[in-house]
């Protein structure tokens, strides 16, 4: 058993500061274990949100030495023995208390994405998906909604004013899962551009780097959506082909109707 030094941010919406703790850590511990030991031995009123301790509920998101991570999946032996470890709440969302933040921004954004609207059933009363199509969107369904990608995204992290017009990587994953779904009939391309602000993303890939589920958010969700938007909005050849084939749609289509909740 060795002592570890941990600086934990403590405070609320009005402000706060880092508080130093030194506690013994056992072999095999993760950061969340140390935070729990601090709760048990030094600060019983330390607020921390957690649930599964297995990297599957997405509750214990925090910033550890400035890196957005799940506390339950960050092993203590990844730090140098005498390294001071800082733990702070995710910065993109308002602090409630200590390490707990109000992530309701995400739930409000989720409401603005229309639900899955499947095609009519085939003659035999079924709907079919083929394996290659299942595999493509399966990756997106691994999301545990830890919101680390939302936290690290500089578009809303560093620019509060963008929050009304930009939904963040989590919702581009959601939009991609539905837009690429072979059975979904809703058109979400204009929605992604005009209501969810995909154009604000400058693909710096931080969302992909922090994803604990290893979802290739930028490469497989955001960029394919951007390419679909290009076809719809910016590509004159695609526009000319649509016109020749008698399909509707002009370059830079107007604002869509507000999405249903």
């Amino acid at each position, binding site marked *: 058993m060795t002592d570890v030094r941990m600086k934990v941010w403590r405070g609320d919406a009005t402000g706060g500061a880092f508080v130093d703790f030194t506690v013994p850590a056992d072999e095999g511990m993760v950061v969340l274990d140390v935070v729990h030991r601090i709760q048990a031995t030094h600060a019983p009123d330390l607020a921390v949100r957690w649930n599964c301790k297995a990297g599957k509920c997405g509750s214990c998101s925090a910033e550890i030495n400035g890196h957005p991570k799940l506390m339950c999946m960050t092993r203590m032996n990844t730090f140098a023995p005498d390294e001071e470890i800082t733990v702070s709440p995710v910065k993109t969302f308002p602090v409630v208390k200590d390490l707990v933040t*109000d992530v309701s921004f995400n739930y409000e954004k989720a409401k603005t994405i229309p639900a899955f609207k499947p095609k009519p059933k085939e003659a035999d009363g079924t709907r079919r998906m083929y394996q*290659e199509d299942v595999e493509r969107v399966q990756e997106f369904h691994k999301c545990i909604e830890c919101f680390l990608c939302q936290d690290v995204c500089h578009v809303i992290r560093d620019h509060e004013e963008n929050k009304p017009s930009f939904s963040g990587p989590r919702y581009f994953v959601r939009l991609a899962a539905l837009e690429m779904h072979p059975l979904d009939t809703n058109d979400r391309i204009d929605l992604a551009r005009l209501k969810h602000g995909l154009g604000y993303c400058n693909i710096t890939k931080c969302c992909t780097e922090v994803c604990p589920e290893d979802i290739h958010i930028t490469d497989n969700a955001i960029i394919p959506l951007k390419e679909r938007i290009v076809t719809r909005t910016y590509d004159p050849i695609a526009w000319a082909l649509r016109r020749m084939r008698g399909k509707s749609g002009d370059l830079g289509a107007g604002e869509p109707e507000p999405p249903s909740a």
Partner: protein
Amino acid sequence: MATTTASVRQRPHERHDRWWVEPLTIVLVLGLFAVYAFVVSIQNANYYYDPYLSPFYSPCLTTGCVHPTFPIIGDWYNLSPAFLIVGSPLAFRVTCYYYRRSYYRAFFWSPPACTVPDARAKYSGETRFPFNLQNLHRYALYLAIPVLAILWWDAIEAFRFVVPNPERFSGIAVDFPTDRHFGIGLGTVIMVTNVVLLSGYTFGCHAARYLVGGYLDSFHGKSLRFRLWSWANQLNARHSRWAWFSLFSVMLTDLYVRLCAMGVITDLRWVS
């Protein structure tokens, strides 16, 4: 939705690792490449050493080229032929999704590293001019593919050595001898490696992946497009490596041809 912003946001970032190494490296490498490309492009000499043509000068489009590919521009053009073709690869790399990630971080500090704050107070991403032009990346791809085809032709030509004739190496001869035979030199290997790396970079590009099949919602009954999309996916998974290695290979190929043409080194030939 709560609107309160905690003061934690205003504090300096907490990263105490060497986050600045990556953006600094990118600035140095891309800066070095830009300086090198400008210098060799403006030089207008030492870009051909039979049968190797520098990728900075291919296709060579003027009648004044030492080794013209398509001499469609007459003697009135007296600048370097490299300037005529630099736009295609430059546009392709500048609008490339991977390079965008790199230079937005390294040059624009938007952000310089994950969780390190943006340099600018206001941010509109790629929604406004000139950054919305990034949406035309696929057009840069359309321009890059014919150039790539010509580089493949150059690589094939690199297997065809001329029968030694001292007059051809006087520096002024521009005739094209027909007496060529199969050969392999170090330059051949370099030229082929370069074009393979450029092909991996080009066909693994996100726009190519979309255009060959990524635009579809269902691949059922579209086996060719599914196969092409799957191959593009495999290349795309290592797009960053293809991007850097192909950048270095273009520079090294030019450097090798240049040093041979200047007489600094002699081409190592195994079969000639």
